[in-house]
């Protein structure tokens, strides 16, 4: 538990620099497919951390993540598409005129005079993307806040059902608000700004924010509300306020994750944001360990990478002379079995509530 005032920040800084060096190498030498997996790892980790804040640390069983991701994705997308793209894509009903003109990268570029300076133009585009992701997160946080106020009076499974319902409401709204969202047709050709740098940059920010939050007194109050609401109340904690706070912060990062994911996949439509998406994130959190930041990171890395690697079993195989035709869906079967094993033999997840610490690293290196 003890922290070293000098060693820990130095180690943290060193690992962040190492991470970015590795990213540089990955950016230069990896192929598109592997880069995409790395990008997915970063985004999934952001999503898992945000759900862990809500479910793992504050104990609110929320199934609304897909809804917050959808809000983040749509807000971000609508802010970075060019007016031309919007005009040609909204075929069923024309897009709202005020929305059509809204395009952060373009407007910022005009503002800076990027037309005759390519470097300035590129800067404006990146800044516009950053603003769009941020606003996507904020929009999701506002939705989270408005959902939290009525439903956080509920506890346990009821909360799960209510948040699930709200996520579906968001999805149905997106499907039907055609003049804004292009309805069921979805949006295609989203500029692929979500590079490794952006995704891992946001991941480092998320990680820093959540670790700092959980180490502060607020983090202890979250855990107190989760473990024993009555005890928290007898200490003068307004438990409802803290539940709303955790939910809103979680929704913000879910929106950020959704926005980055939209920019990575370059196409979104309402059918993406069904319950399955929430369950994917939930799976990472539970497999890693509820209430462990380290667990969420490991859970998202392992599950994201495994979901890709297991594609091998779906392609034709040749084992010791036997030829197997690939069975579509087989990887999900294997995956489910692995999950069952985790639930049966390690219910608390891979990490439980334990956390990585530099103290641990340095102690194992030394002889006792």
């Amino acid at each position, binding site marked *: 538990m003890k922290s070293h005032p000098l060693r820990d920040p130095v180690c943290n800084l060193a690992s962040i620099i190492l991470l970015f060096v590795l990213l540089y190498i990955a950016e230069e030498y990896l192929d598109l497919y592997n880069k995409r997996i790395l990008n997915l790892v970063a985004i999934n980790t952001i999503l898992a951390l945000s759900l862990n804040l809500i479910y793992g640390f504050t104990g609110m069983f929320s199934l609304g993540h897909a809804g917050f991701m959808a809000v983040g994705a749509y807000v971000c997308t609508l802010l970075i598409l060019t007016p031309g793209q919007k005009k040609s894509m909204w075929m069923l009903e024309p897009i709202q005129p005020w929305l059509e003109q809204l395009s952060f990268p373009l407007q910022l570029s005009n503002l800076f005079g990027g037309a005759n300076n390519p470097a300035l133009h590129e800067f404006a585009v990146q800044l516009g993307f950053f603003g769009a992701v941020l606003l996507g997160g904020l929009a999701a946080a506002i939705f989270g806040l408005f959902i939290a106020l009525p439903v956080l009076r509920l506890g346990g499974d009821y909360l799960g059902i209510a948040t699930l319902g709200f996520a579906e409401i968001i999805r149905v709204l997106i499907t039907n608000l055609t003049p804004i969202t292009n309805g069921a047709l979805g949006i295609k050709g989203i500029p692929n700004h979500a590079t490794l740098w952006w995704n891992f940059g946001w991941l480092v920010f998320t990680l820093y924010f959540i670790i700092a939050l959980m180490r502060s*007194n607020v983090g202890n109050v979250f855990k107190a509300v989760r473990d024993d609401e*009555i005890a928290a109340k007898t200490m003068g904690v307004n438990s409802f306020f803290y539940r709303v706070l955790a939910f809103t912060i979680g929704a913000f990062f879910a929106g950020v994750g959704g926005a980055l994911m939209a920019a990575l996949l370059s196409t979104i439509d309402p059918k993406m944001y069904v319950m399955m998406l929430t369950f994917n994130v939930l799976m990472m959190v539970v497999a890693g360990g509820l209430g462990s930041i380290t667990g969420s990171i490991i859970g998202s890395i392992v599950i994201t990478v495994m979901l890709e690697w297991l594609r091998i079993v779906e392609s034709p195989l040749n084992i010791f002379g036997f030829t197997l035709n690939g069975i579509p869906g087989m990887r999900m079967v294997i995956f489910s079995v692995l999950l069952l094993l985790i639930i049966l033999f390690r219910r608390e997840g891979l990490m439980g509530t334990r956390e990585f610490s530099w103290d641990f690293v340095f102690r194992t290196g030394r002889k006792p």
Partner: protein
Amino acid sequence: MLEIRDLHIYYGGIHAVKGISLSIPRGRIVTMVGANGAGKSSTVRAISGIVKAQGEIIYTREENGPSVNVLGLPSEDIVRLGIVQSPEGRRILPQLTVEENLRLGAYIRNDKEGVASDLDWVYSLFPRLRERAWQNGGTLSGGEQQMLAVGRALMSRPDLLMLDEPSLGLAPILVGEIFEIIRHINGLGKTVLLIEQNAFAALSIAHYAYILETGTVALEGQGMDLLHNPQVKEAYLGG
């Protein structure tokens, strides 16, 4: 300091507390004694604002100061008024360290130096807690958890400290230790409301006592008088 008038508490259709009236004078130890289900803990929860109740709970924080009816206020406001309880069953936060538990007790306070000096004071009251400061609350023994619960309540610097069954589940030697500390805290000028099933120990240190039976006050009087009352002896002290 605290005046309860005609307090009624209902849980669904069950009438748990049926018109209790009691008063807690400043600087005293007042105890509520009674069997399970007599309504002791319910009364404390009503004072803390954790359960709904009817009646009046008049609180006067400063001598000759203004009085407020705390009934119906949210629990966090009541803590800010200086009424704090160490709840039944201790309710330690198992995943937080001893020190984090204590610091959460000072949640309503913003004076950093004051909290630090109170932390030191609580550690000097319970040296065992200082030894275990970095341990998780869940790993403590029952007696240590009880010390932590009392210490945590003290961290908010309460004017009225309510202790709900501090001796529950403790070895007799520890019970003596806890009661000695309660008396010491009272000696420092804090008003104490003590809830107990251990009638003998509670009556020995209390200035005034109420004996509760099925939601009503059956008997009241000076602690020592009740200790020698034949009726009480027969019912609560084993003859």
